[in-house]
């Protein structure tokens, strides 16, 4: 079975082609290249290197977010269009979980984060292979939650750098961060996770934003005020 994996949910771009138990080719980059420009050429190039034609792809795995709204949408749009037109199953996986699975052997809590501005983060908390929480949350609340778990915590993700001082200050000895090699999403990891899941109905695959838009939030507030 030949898999194509795509993750464009934050600044990094990750693409992989896996055949059965073998990673044929994998690409990771944290360069700030617009995903809209870079993703399709990178897929085209990687497939050429792996000597795989589009019609040989048999399954697609895509990171569904959270992350940058536009970024997530590009990967999901490419993934679902390819899956639909090639008539192959599509699997959508949490972007935060994909990051956390970079550290599968860590004994303790793994926390993956992406910066969401204004002192907020998208954060995933995982323990013993289970999802504890995935949320759009203030960094302060996240650190309180982790502190209360009273376990060793490993932080993963390139945005950890932005908040590392504050994280260290709150969690002290209980916290460490993964080294740079594990900070970028790995699309081969994404594919391995997808292998254990059920496929989604292709037309229904949409990003997991974990946040409604500001316009909708304001509109709902307005509705409540008017008693609707």
């Amino acid at each position: 079975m030949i898999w194509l994996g795509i993750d464009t949910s934050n600044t990094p771009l990750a693409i992989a082609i896996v055949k059965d138990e073998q990673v044929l080719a994998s690409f990771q980059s944290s360069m700030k290249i617009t995903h809209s420009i870079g993703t399709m050429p990178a897929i085209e190039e990687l497939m050429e290197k792996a000597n795989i034609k589009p019609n040989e792809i048999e399954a697609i795995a895509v990171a569904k977010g959270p992350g940058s709204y536009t970024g997530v949408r590009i990967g999901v749009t490419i993934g679902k269009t390819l899956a639909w037109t090639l008539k192959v199953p599509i699997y959508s996986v949490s972007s935060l979980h994909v990051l956390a699975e970079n550290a599968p052997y860590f004994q303790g809590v793994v926390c993956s984060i992406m910066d969401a501005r204004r002192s907020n983060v998208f954060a995933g908390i995982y323990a013993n292979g289970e999802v504890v929480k995935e949320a759009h949350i203030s960094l302060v609340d996240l650190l309180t939650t982790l502190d209360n778990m009273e376990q060793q915590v490993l932080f993963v993700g390139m945005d950890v750098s932005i908040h590392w001082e504050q994280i260290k200050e709150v969690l002290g000895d209980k916290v460490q961060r993964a080294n740079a090699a594990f900070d970028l999403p790995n699309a081969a990891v994404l594919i391995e996770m997808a292998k254990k899941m059920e496929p989604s109905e292709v037309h229904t695959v949409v990003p997991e934003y974990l946040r409604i838009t500001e316009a909708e939030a304001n509109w709902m507030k307005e509705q409540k005020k008017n008693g609707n």
Partner: protein
Amino acid sequence: MRKDQYILGIETSCDETAASIVKNGHEIISNVVASQIESHKRFGGVVPEVASRHHVEQITIVIEEALKQADMTPQDLDAVAVTEGPGLVGALLIGINAAKAFAFANGLPLVGVHHIAGHIYANALVQKMEFPLLALVVSGGHTELVLMKEDGQFELIGETRDDAAGEAYDKVARVLNLPYPGGPHIDKLANESDEALQFPRAWLEEGSYDFSFSGLKSAVINYQHNAEQRGEEINPNHLAAGFQQSVVEVLTTKTIRAAREFKVKQVIAAGGVAANKGLRNSLEEAFTKENIHFYVPPIKLCTDNAAMIAAAGNSKYSAGHLSDMSMNGRPGLELNSWN
């Protein structure tokens, strides 16, 4: 005999997710539009982030429906054309990335199309375009006079310096508490009116084909506010009629002058505001007098759709102008000739 050419068009530049298949640049085989208007009504206008989210929900469904209605498979197509710009960037990106993925998976050439070129080529779907041709493009985002000396050649001879005509309509409609989108409501009020208030016309410098609607818009809004402060009731029909007369007179007069100067064979109106009855009637009447062939496509082809993108894409593809997998959404894309 030349082989028939089938183009899949995709359009997501604003709040319609659309896909269509067009044969030889003029025959619509299928034309699917999923409108988001019900969703944006809540906000009184298009919210870009909400538009982008809806496009992702709809895009594969809409393309599938276009193929199904045409009873075709990707193998029957010759190329994929997609709106490259201008438009809302987040919205454009959905159509563009779907088009790229679809073209790549099926080994099809890809063509990036300018949204305004699409609106102009909507006319190719109902009649043969004859050159030189003058196009008046009026919509929520555009007010432009485009001269085409040949197929695939565009010369922008005039454009709005501030608000697009449709934008002014929407803003005036909001002052009159009309539902979004306001254009059709103002058109209706104006047509029912037997009287019109007097508002200024912005002619700009002598000889200019440019437009300006922000002064008019402010004049209308101020009139309404002043009346309100004095506790006077204003007749919304008279206000709508006065506003519409000003817009229509300027658009008609400048279009006629350009048609004469450039000795065009055909004048066409395109874009959502071309569906406006007041504007249509005024242009039709004026060009009948001038003995110049004037045409407005049916409303379905005036508002955003993908058949127009496929029609323009057919011309551009035939001229050999292809895009590659690095195509990006370009919100400020200029209208360049391809011939």
